[in-house]
C-alpha cells in the first residue's frame, strides 16, 4: 500500500511557507493593483475620448472587460487548482480552489451587471440573450454549483475532491456551452447586436483598457491570496506556527 508521507508533507509543510511568502507578496499586489487600476480607471473615465457610436456609456468597458476576463480565467484557475489538489493531494491547492470560487462568482456577477447597464443605453435593453451574456450567466451558475457542492460536505476532504471533480467537468463544458449558445444565438437573432462594437480600438481607449485589465489581474490575485491566507490559518488552527502568529 502506498505510503501517505507526501500527504503528510503537504498537510504540515506548505501552509506555513505560503503564509510567510504571501505576506510579502500581498502588499506588492495591493500597490500594483491600486496604481494600475487607479490610473487606468481615471484615464478611462476622465481623459479618454468619447466613443463615436456609443457615447460616454462605453466607459463601462474599463470595468466590464477586465471583470469578464477574470471571471473566465478565474474558472480555469479554480479548476487547475482543483486538479493539482486531486493529483498531488495538496491541501493548499484545494484551499486555493475554494477561495477562487466565490471570487470568480463575484467577478462574473460584476461583468453581468456592468454588461446589463451598458446594454441599456447602447441597445436599449438591459438584457438580451446574447451568446456572451448567456454563457456568462451559465458560468455564474457553474461557480455557484462549485461553491454549494464544496460547502455541502461536512468533511472538508470530501468537499475538496467533489468540488475539484465538478470544476474539472465544468472546464470541458465551458467551451461547449459557449459554442452552443453562440450557435443558438445566431439561429435566433441574426447579428443585430455585437458586443464587440469596436474591432479596431483607438490607442487612446486601448491603453487605459490594458491598464485596467492588468490592474484587475493584480487585484484578483491580491484578493485570492488574501482569501487563501485566512483559509490557511483556519486550516492549521491547531498548529504551532499559527499560535505563534497570534
Amino acid at each position, binding site marked *: *500500500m502506498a505510503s*501517505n508521507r507526501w500527504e503528510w508533507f503537504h498537510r504540515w509543510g506548505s501552509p506555513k511557507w505560503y503564509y510567510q511568502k504571501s505576506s510579502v507578496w500581498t502588499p506588492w499586489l495591493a500597490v500594483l493593483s491600486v496604481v494600475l487600476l487607479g490610473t487606468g480607471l481615471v484615464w478611462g473615465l476622465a481623459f479618454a475620448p468619447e466613443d463615436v457610436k456609443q457615447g460616454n456609456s462605453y466607459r463601462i468597458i474599463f470595468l466590464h472587460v477586465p471583470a469578464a476576463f477574470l471571471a473566465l480565467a478565474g474558472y480555469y484557475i479554480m479548476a487547475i487548482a482543483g486538479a493539482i489538489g486531486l493529483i498531488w493531494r495538496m491541501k493548499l491547492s484545494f484551499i486555493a480552489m475554494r477561495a477562487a470560487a466565490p471570487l470568480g462568482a463575484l467577478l462574473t456577477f460584476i461583468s453581468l451587471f456592468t454588461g446589463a447597464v451598458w446594454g441599456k443605453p447602447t441597445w436599449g435593453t438591459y438584457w438580451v440573450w446574447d451568446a456572451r451574456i448567456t454563457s456568462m450567466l451559465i458560468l455564474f451558475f457553474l461557480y455557484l454549483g462549485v461553491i454549494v457542492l464544496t460547502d455541502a460536505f461536512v468533511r*472538508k476532504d470530501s468537499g475538496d475532491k467533489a468540488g475539484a471533480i465538478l470544476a474539472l467537468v465544468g472546464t470541458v463544458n465551458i467551451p461547449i456551452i459557449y459554442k452552443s449558445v453562440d450557435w443558438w444565438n445566431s439561429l435566433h437573432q441574426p447579428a443585430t447586436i455585437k458586443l464587440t462594437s469596436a474591432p479596431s480600438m483607438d490607442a487612446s481607449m486601448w491603453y487605459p483598457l490594458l491598464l485596467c485589465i492588468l490592474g484587475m489581474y493584480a487585484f484578483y490575485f491580491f484578493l485570492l491570496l488574501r482569501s487563501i491566507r485566512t483559509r490557511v490559518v483556519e486550516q492549521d488552527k491547531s498548529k504551532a506556527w499559527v499560535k505563534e502568529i497570534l
Partner: protein
Amino acid sequence: MAIKLQLNNLSCFYDDIQLFKPVDLTLRKGEICRVMGPNGAGKTTLLRSVGGLFRGYNGKVMLSDEASRIHYLGHRAGIRDELTCIENLQFLTQYSLTRTSIDSALERVGLIGYEQAFPDELSAGQRRRLLLATLFCMQFDILLLDEPFTALDVDGVALIAAQLKNIAEQGCIVLYSTHHADAVLTPNKTVMLEVSQ
C-alpha cells in the same frame, strides 16, 4: 510467501481531527484480530483504511504480498431489498459463482428454502446470515468485517465465529470490529482504540 498485514503508526483523520491514537499491528497468516473501542473511536474507519476505502490516514498499511485479495464487508453489507437472496449473493461475490455453490452456502447458514425470498421478508438475524453466506462463497486473503455479530441470535453468533475460525485456518487474516468481548470467539489479538485528545 506468507501473507502478512502490518499497520505502522496508523491513525485516521476526520479532516484534521485525529480519531484514535496511532495503532501498530502485525498480523500473520491465519490470525484473527478484533478491533474494539468506544463509539466514535473509529473502528469502522480503521477497517476501511486497511481496505483502501478511506484515504484520510497517516502512517502505513503494508502487505507483504501486493497481490493479496483484501475484502471489506461493511455493517450495511450491501444487501439490496429489491434482489432475491440468490441475486444478492451473486452480486456480492462478483458473479463468480455457480448456482450450486451458492446453494451450498445458503444451506450452511440455514437459509435453505429462502433462495428466492427478498431480504425484507427475512428477519434481521436471517439477513445477517445471508451476509454470512457470502463469507462461504468469497475468495480472499484478508477479510475485514465491520461488526459481524450485531443483530444475531446465539446460534448465529456461534455460526459466524465458527466460520471466521474456519477462514483463518485456511490461511486468511481476519480483522473484525466489535463492541463487546464475545466468549464464542477468542481472537489471537485485540486492538483497543483509544480516543485521542
